[in-house]
């Protein structure tokens, strides 16, 4: 059984069909790309998968179980975590706290334990701190642990977004344009990092990316979206030559990158 499967996923805003009839399948351990020109509906697919929007038609199956109607936090607790294209960190909180918040749902002590400072409080807080620091170490963010998240440099903020999503212990990680605003060296480093993450945490990953070379190099399988519809699906080699994909990207400078990649 696929890890995640969508059937005929559809959502319109007013008259605009942002996503229509999308069928996706993601297998255990796969690294899948989702591409498409600006406004194609990629982020909306993420918002549907994570329960932020409710589909008007179609279904989302997680290991055979429907996610439709669940609240976003319930979906996260089942094993889907995401990053946001427009960074949504907890800006006024420390980097460490940003991570700790994702630990919240799987490392709990009671309200009473918190207010009375029972031993469970000290035990769990110590444990959370240790694990948060480990994760920050892995992401090279340890020196920022006590900084406010909003004061981090842009690239570090993007990395913290991924670290935070990972702290929620997902089986499927959804990355929304993680390389946005990065230079080629940084993008290259990010690619290596994503590959390594996937091994280390045995993750499946669904990646939205505008940087074509990144998707083509990284992903095993790619879905191309245009006007809310899947126009092509397959391995990078096929997608690159697919006439409808080239057409969709025509006029964007990406077309050039595509031809060259």
């Amino acid at each position, binding site marked *: 059984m696929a890890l995640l499967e969508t059937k005929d996923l559809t959502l319109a805003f007013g008259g605009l069909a942002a996503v229509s009839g999308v069928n996706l399948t993601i297998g255990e351990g796969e690294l899948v790309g989702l591409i498409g020109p600006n406004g194609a509906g990629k982020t909306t697919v993420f918002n549907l998968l*994570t329960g*932020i929007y409710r589909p008007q038609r179609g279904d989302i199956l997680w290991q055979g179980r429907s996610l439709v109607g669940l*609240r*976003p*936090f319930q979906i*996260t*607790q089942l094993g889907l*975590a*995401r990053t*946001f294209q427009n960074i*949504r*960190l*907890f*800006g*006024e*909180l*420390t980097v*460490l*706290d940003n991570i*700790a*918040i*994702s*630990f*919240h*749902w*799987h*490392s*709990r*002590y009671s*309200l009473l*334990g*918190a*207010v*009375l*400072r029972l*031993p469970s*409080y*000290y035990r*769990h*807080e*110590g444990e*959370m*701190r240790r694990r*948060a620091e480990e994760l920050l170490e892995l992401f090279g963010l340890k020196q920022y*642990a*006590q900084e406010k998240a909003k004061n981090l440099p842009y690239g570090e903020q993007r990395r913290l977004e991924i670290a*935070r*999503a990972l*702290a*929620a212990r997902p089986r499927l990680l959804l990355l929304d344009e993680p390389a946005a605003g990065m230079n080629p060296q940084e993008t290259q480093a990010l690619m290596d990092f994503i590959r390594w993450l996937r091994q280390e945490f045995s993750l499946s990953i669904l990646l939205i990316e505008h940087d074509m070379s990144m998707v083509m190099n990284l992903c095993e399988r790619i879905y191309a979206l245009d006007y809310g519809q899947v126009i092509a699906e397959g391995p990078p080699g096929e997608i690159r030559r697919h006439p409808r994909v080239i057409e969709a990207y025509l006029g964007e400078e990406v077309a050039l990158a595509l031809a060259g990649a």
Partner: protein
Amino acid sequence: MGYFRSKNIAIFLVIIGIYFAVDWLLEEGIITKFQQVNLMLLGINVILATSLNLIVGFTGQLALGHAGFMAIGAYVATIFTVKLGQPFALALAVGSLAAALAGVLIGLPTLRLRGDYLAIATLGFGEIIRGLAVNIEYVGGAAGIMGIPRLTTWPWLYAMTVLTVVAIKNFINSTHGRACLAVRENEIAAEAMGINTTYYKVLAFTLGAFFGGLAGGLYAHYFYLIQPSTFSFLRSFDILVMVVLGGMGSLTGSVIAAAAITLVNALLQDLALLRMVIYAALLVAVMIFRPQGLMGNKELTLNILRPRGGADRGIVGD
């Protein structure tokens, strides 16, 4: 780690010290009747401000109906002592629980609303509570209830104030408090990180209401008399002003602001009506020149001399 760190012991000693010092001053009659009234008001205001800060400052839910919770606590506690002849402790507990229950009931539907709309709905809620009190003959209608025994003594007031502040502080510095902060910072991201934002909004609202109700019970049993007009939206504004002046998301800020406002009010007492004009002008001036309030979202801690980190609300593994 644990309870018996030197810092906790120091804080504990200071708290006990203040108690006995004031107790002695009261015994000796050095604190005048007038000062005593203001001392009690100060404690009650600290409870009101810190509990509202939990909702507005830490969880980011703009609520303008705190006086409504205070009213419920005051009326229910008074019914228990005056009408049912129950002990004060039970009356306070039931009053606070009733307010907390109202917090759940009003929170569940209204916390879907955001920002100004939530503010309006909670303001409306406070006015409904007041309006109901006017219409219920059992609690004296618009005239209210008179002749309430003065059961709020210094030990009661002090114990309840400390309890409130410590409970709220411990809550905030826990994983549950962090969940509330996450809601304030970015509700969508909080939800996406596995936090049941509805639960935490309602929880913050309920806890805030609980302590608001506690303040109401204490208030009723100090001032002999409660009337619906005591709990109008103007009182909710007063409490909000303390929170904002102290700094949203700063517990020590709320304590300082509640104390400062009570003191300024007491000092300007002789000016009568002019006092409120000055108060209003000061309020506007402070907002223009320091909109983030006295403390911003920082805390005053024993470590203020430490260069950095003292004010951080990081994981308190200490």
